[in-house]
């Protein structure tokens, strides 16, 4: 990117969020993922003649909740329009969407730009979020000369969340997408599963020379099913456009698909102009009216959202701003943190739990590409492990060893401590006995120490630790050794 100084990228995102309803937006067919092809596509979803759409109340509530959560204007009256285009996975020949009066307009989210304590906050504004129906799926492989159509997804409720073009790097775009991803899951309106297409991010990317006020021609990058690919796809597209312009070429407005195997984007189609969709109000659907008191009841039902939760973690638990934002960045991570802390009861230590969740656990999950909800070390077992750290049964080093063993499925922390004999020796009597034995074996060194050779203290610590196989509690060992050497000296003086 350094070779591209003098250029800036302008990025806006369109996020298609599948709402977690049981039934479709305009029909009573099920929305469950992974069903037999076309087993959840009824006459309405197939666009058969004579059918009429009837709007799902829950889809309206979920869309409004999102609007309330991002501080947007939630329209008390919104309307549906038809977006006309021909494609086999859209049997009606139009998609029911909202153009003129969307349910949600405006709003904003705050993202952190940069890492750790150097991160600065940036506000990204939303243009709108409108209700619409999803299309079916086309399967191009496996059928000689034909395309297979599965309409199970057709009619699944979506909100399309459109941002203003206010992001200027792939990292900012990812931070924004992650924030929206976290919010829809906190709200319980989307399962957030990117692999299954529940949360689909399209990026509008253009570049311009720094200082230019005109926007460059944009391309739309599709087919990005993870945050990692989103970052790589946008970076690739930024570089491609800059190099194209620097080589005297021109960016064409088009839709490009990201290919994760080749780590590149390639042209899918040149974009039809917007007015080719010939939007018009859908005569089958009446205006959607939300009563003010209903909206207020929904507002009152909003759960604690990531920013508020992070502020509470800072104020209540004394965690750093960075740790708080990492812990609250996903609903499951915050839930894991809170469950672990709760399971430790009175001995709960928020900073200790935060360090383990954002450190050891996060690193291990990341290494194996696992979601925290699928962690091989569940919250109750991490709590048990950390209780053994708090009560000095385990040193930090031994705790990591036990963590690895729990991760590997060897059992519970207490079981592993017992089986491996890892328990730290905290019995003062036992430590005194070991110290006594070592001092008795080395009367000459004891005498030298008493004569003023302080450095020998470390020599004794090493010998006792060796005898204890490293398991003696270091602080207690120090204390016992000090008093023994002192008391021995007094006795010797008699």
């Amino acid at each position, binding site marked *: 990117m350094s070779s591209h100084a003098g250029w800036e990228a302008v990025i806006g995102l369109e996020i298609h969020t599948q709402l977690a309803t049981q*039934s479709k937006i305009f029909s009573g067919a099920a929305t469950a993922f992974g069903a037999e092809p*076309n087993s959840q*596509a009824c006459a309405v979803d197939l666009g058969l003649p004579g059918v009429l759409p009837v709007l*799902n109340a829950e889809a309206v509530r979920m869309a409004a909740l999102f609007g309330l959560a991002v501080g947007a204007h939630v329209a008390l*009256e919104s309307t549906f329009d038809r977006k006309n285009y021909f494609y*086999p996975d859209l049997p009606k020949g139009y998609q029911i969407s909202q153009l003129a009066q969307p349910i949600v307009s405006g709003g904003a989210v705050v993202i952190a730009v940069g890492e750790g304590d150097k991160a600065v906050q940036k506000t990204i504004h939303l243009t709108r979020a409108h209700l619409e129906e999803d299309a079916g799926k086309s399967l191009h492989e496996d059928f000689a*000369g034909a395309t297979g159509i599965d309409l199970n997804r057709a009619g699944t409720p979506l909100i399309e969340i459109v941002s203003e073009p206010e992001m200027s790097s792939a990292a900012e775009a990812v931070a924004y997408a992650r924030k929206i991803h976290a919010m829809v899951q906190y709200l319980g309106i989307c399962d957030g599963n990117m692999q299954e297409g529940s949360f689909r991010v399209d990026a509008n990317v253009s570049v311009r020379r720094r200082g230019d006020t005109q926007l460059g021609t944009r391309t739309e990058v599709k087919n990005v099913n993870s945050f990692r690919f989103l970052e790589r796809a946008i970076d690739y597209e930024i570089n491609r456009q800059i190099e194209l312009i620097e080589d005297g070429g021109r960016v064409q407005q088009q839709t490009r698909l990201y290919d994760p195997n080749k780590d590149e984007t390639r042209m899918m189609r040149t974009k039809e102009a917007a007015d080719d969709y010939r939007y018009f109000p859908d005569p089958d*659907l009446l205006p959607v009216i939300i009563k003010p008191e209903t909206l207020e009841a929904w507002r009152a039902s909003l759960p604690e959202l990531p920013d508020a939760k992070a502020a509470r973690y800072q104020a209540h638990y004394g965690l750093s701003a960075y740790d708080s934002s990492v812990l609250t960045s996903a609903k499951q991570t915050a839930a894991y943190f809170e469950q672990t802390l709760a399971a430790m009861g009175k001995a709960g230590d928020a900073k200790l739990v935060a360090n383990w969740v954002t450190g050891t656990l996060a690193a291990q999950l990341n290494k194996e590409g696992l979601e925290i909800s699928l962690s091989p070390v569940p919250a109750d077992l991490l709590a048990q492990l950390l209780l053994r750290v708090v009560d000095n049964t385990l040193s930090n080093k031994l705790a990591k060893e036990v963590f690895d063993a729990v991760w590997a499925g060897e059992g519970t922390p207490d079981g592993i401590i017992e089986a491996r004999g890892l328990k730290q020796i905290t019995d003062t009597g036992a430590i005194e006995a070991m110290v006594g034995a070592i001092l008795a074996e080395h009367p000459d060194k004891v005498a030298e120490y008493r004569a003023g050779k302080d450095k020998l203290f470390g020599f004794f610590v090493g010998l006792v630790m060796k005898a204890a196989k490293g398991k003696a509690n270091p602080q207690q060992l120090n204390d016992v050794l000090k008093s023994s050497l002192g008391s021995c000296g007094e006795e010797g003086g008699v």
Partner: protein
Amino acid sequence: MSLNATQLKHVAHLSRIALDEAKIPALLNDLNAILAFAEQLQDSKLDALAPMAHPLDQSQFLRPDIVTEENNRTALQQGAPAVERGLFLVPKVIE
């Protein structure tokens, strides 16, 4: 407002309607007569009125989020020209 032959072909393409070149002049004539008829609406004084999304003065009925449809695939696919492994088959769509 009136359509020319290029616009007519464009609209026909968007609507996936095949046009017989020989019939274009007659079609243009008819369509432009319809547009002229509708154009009388432009003379109405509408400034004081809000756009209307629907002629009925009612709001949308909302249904509860309940699955009411069972798998009726066999019956629904009887009218399909080609079906394989539960999928509707259509001529190859090239992206």
